[in-house]
């Protein structure tokens, strides 16, 4: 069985890899030092299981687990943490295991056995823990390849039926989420300018009018000009003026 070891601390990775090497039937097929790298490695190596540290810079373990659960062949996930994170309380203890560092070899073996028996971790069993925090990346497949767009780089989100287009200067992906829930999750760094669009406040550059006389926003980093609804125009104007 192949296992991917994810931790931002090299000594922690080293120890886990060693513990795995001592367990018959398991091998550490790769390592990653944050959530985004974990997703790329998991995509490439197709592990049976991911040992995932919860607290990591960039994309943390909970967010990575959420995207891993969306894989075609989702690996089982076992979380590791140094100290009882509150997030762990939200897990269904039967479905998702976690290990406290320094990890006891016997506990590791039990967790791996159980994970191997149960297989991949379905999204819903991540419980509220994975859904409540603000994400750091958008994740989707583009022509079969995994694409990650850091939230900080996103310029706008545009809804179309049940999909939302996520646009950054260099990337464009489509996610299957509602604009309303995204608006709630992302908070004040995004501004609603239309029933179907949110724009990043930091990317707001100005306003112009299309030939038909509709107001549109100019955004930094992308050519697209998005229509502003009449109702939301005063607020958009105010934000552009205040320079934020």
């Amino acid at each position, binding site marked *: 069985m192949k296992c991917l070891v994810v931790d931002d*601390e090299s*000594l*922690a990775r*080293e*120890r886990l890899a*060693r513990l795995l090497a001592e367990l018959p039937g398991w091998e550490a097929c790769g390592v990653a030092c944050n959530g985004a790298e974990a997703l790329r490695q998991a995509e490439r190596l197709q592990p049976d299981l991911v040992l995932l540290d919860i*607290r990591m810079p*960039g994309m943390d373990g909970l967010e990575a687990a959420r995207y891993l659960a969306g894989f075609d062949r989702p690996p089982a996930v076992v979380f590791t943490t140094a*100290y009882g994170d509150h997030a762990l309380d939200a897990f269904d203890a039967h479905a998702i295991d976690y290990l406290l*560092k320094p990890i006891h070899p016997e506990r590791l073996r039990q967790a791996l056995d159980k994970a191997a028996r149960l297989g991949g971790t379905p999204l819903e069993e991540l419980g509220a823990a994975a859904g409540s925090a603000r994400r750091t990346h958008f994740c989707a497949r583009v022509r079969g390849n995994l694409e990650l767009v850091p939230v900080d780089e996103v310029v706008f989100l545009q809804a179309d039926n049940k999909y939302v287009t996520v646009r950054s200067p260099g990337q464009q992906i489509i996610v299957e989420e509602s604009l309303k829930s995204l608006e709630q999750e992302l908070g004040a760094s995004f501004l609603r300018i239309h029933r179907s669009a949110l724009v990043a406040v930091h990317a707001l550059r100005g306003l112009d009018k299309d030939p038909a006389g509709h107001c549109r926003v100019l955004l930094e980093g992308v050519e697209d000009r998005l229509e502003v609804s009449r109702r939301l125009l005063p607020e958009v104007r105010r934000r552009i003026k205040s320079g934020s």
Partner: protein
Amino acid sequence: MSRDSGTTRAKHRQEALFLPSFCDIRMVFAVVVIAELLAFVLVLAGYHIEVWSHLGLVSLFVQLVALTSAAVLCMVRPLLARTGNTAAAISSYLLLLLITALISELAFQTGGLGQPLTGNTDHPGFLFRNLGISAIMSALVLRYLYVQHQWRQQIQAEAQARVQALQARIRPHFLFNSMNSIAALTRSDPVRAEQAVQDLSDLFRVTLQEASERVTLDDEISVAERYLRMEALRLGDRLRVEWDIDRLPRKRWVPSLILQPLLENAIYHGIEPSPQGGRIRINGWAEGKRITIKISNPRAASGADAHRKGNQIALENIRLRLQLAFGEQAGVALTEIADQFETTLYFPREKMQ
């Protein structure tokens, strides 16, 4: 050693007793003043014509009772301290009544004070009146002393709780992550593992000290270095540290653990949230009568708010401890400069108060 703890225990017990020490000269003065006030009240309430001569007699008598009581309470205080407050209250109350009775009796028999004081020679009447007055006054005074003692104890407990709350603690995350690093090193690099165990032990020894402990700046810096070495173990080259403290007088005293919590915050909020890590700068110097230490760390984009909040608690704590040690001339400030957080500690160069 055992005698030491014996005397400390006795001292503890005496502090727990609600009765103050009547051997204290200030207490004696208070007794005299209160006794004289009582004498005034008694004379004013008596509607005598010869107020002044009567006041002399009453004062003499009341002072005699009050001062004798103070002397006796002064002597029996160590005994009372062993009994607990309820027993001490009852026995001192009975003692006060007994003293009143004895002195009244003595005054009546020898000096003939009873007659001029009461205006008649009614012996039992004189005794009972005095006992009545003494019963009420003693109850009031004891009650007052008890309430005041409770109040003082409460203030003390609050002060202690504040000091304890100020006691620097190391985050549990740090402990367990360090343990994990050591577990990894024991096989791959036993020498570094040994060093890490020593560093961690020293750090914990310091955090277990009293919050009011004082150390030299030299010691404080060495604690900070150990802490940073532990963090470097797990963060690797994500943590870069730059010391610039050649101009710092190293023999000055400071409250223990004023640097480490700030470094911990700098790492927790400035280095850990960033995949690339960053640099922490510690810059210290003395200028005129003031010593300044500056710690700067990068501002992680995602953690800026948490940083401010987390820092505020640590800063408030350190500010209070610095001010307890140095008074108002010491303090700590947080500034944001471009993409950096900068924490500045300052305190007077002279000796601690």
